[in-house]
């Protein structure tokens, strides 16, 4: 059964490429999400997370300044954001990278290239798991 997802939740998309931010934004809008903000690297994302109430983070892995993995570790170490669900969008499909992300507390990951359906499934898995936790 599909989980109930609050489509008004505030989602932060983090990617150094505007193209990927736009692709992810388009998919999230297709799903029905309306409250979306963006950051172009991990450091800017962390600043937004500390200042605003972000309900869900979708982040790239490979970024300059602060990688997605470092951002994830920082989120988990930030009191007000430590329980925020994080979906990693990555070209890093190798097993050791996935293990690193899971150890750091990622909720789910999507390997590029991906379809809109895959992203939706991964998001539903995150919120189903959290609803049952």
């Amino acid at each position: 059964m599909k989980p109930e997802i609050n489509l008004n939740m505030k989602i932060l998309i983090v990617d150094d490429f505007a193209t990927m931010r736009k692709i992810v934004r388009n998919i999230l809008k297709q799903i029905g999400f309306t409250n979306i903000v963006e950051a172009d690297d991990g450091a800017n994302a962390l600043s937004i997370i500390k200042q605003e109430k972000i309900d869900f983070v979708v982040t790239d892995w490979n970024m300059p300044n602060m990688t997605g993995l470092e951002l994830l570790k920082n989120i988990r170490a930030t009191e007000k954001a430590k329980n925020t669900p994080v979906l990693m969008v990555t070209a890093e499909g190798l097993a050791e990278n996935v293990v690193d992300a899971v150890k750091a507390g990622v909720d789910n990951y999507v390997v590029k290239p991906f379809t809109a359906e895959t992203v939706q499934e991964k998001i539903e898995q995150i919120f189903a798991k959290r609803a049952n936790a």
Partner: protein
Amino acid sequence: MNVEFINPFLTATIGVLKTMAFTEVQPGKPFLKKDKISRGDVSGIVGITGPPNGSMSLTFSSGCIIAIVSNMLGESFKEVNDDIKDAVGELSNMISGTARNDLGNKGYSFKTSIPAVVAGPGHEIMHMCKAPTIAIPFSTQAGNFVVEISFENGA
């Protein structure tokens, strides 16, 4: 260069463009490229650190990349602008990442750099090593593009 390296980049190119840009591409016959002059209008290049070290580039004709990015983002583009260049960087990132994952499953351990993008007719592509460059031409309904790979000798 190890011919085992060619196929992962070929299949990654077909897969990424089909999945992310809904674009069917036809590969042509690979050839040895002996100069640095690009075979198109805009290129993305990614450094690959092994061993072996190497690099990959993608070079698109204007018409080809405008059609691909228009499909990918659901917007209509008319010229090679900053949005198109950003998309070339992301496509380079995805294709090199997918090929690297494939090669990783074959026992190779690679890291890839953040892509650089160069545009303009006749621009040069500087690969990371002096080894021969293998070019794979592709065609689409909107025009052609070329994927180049170069790995240091002995690979």
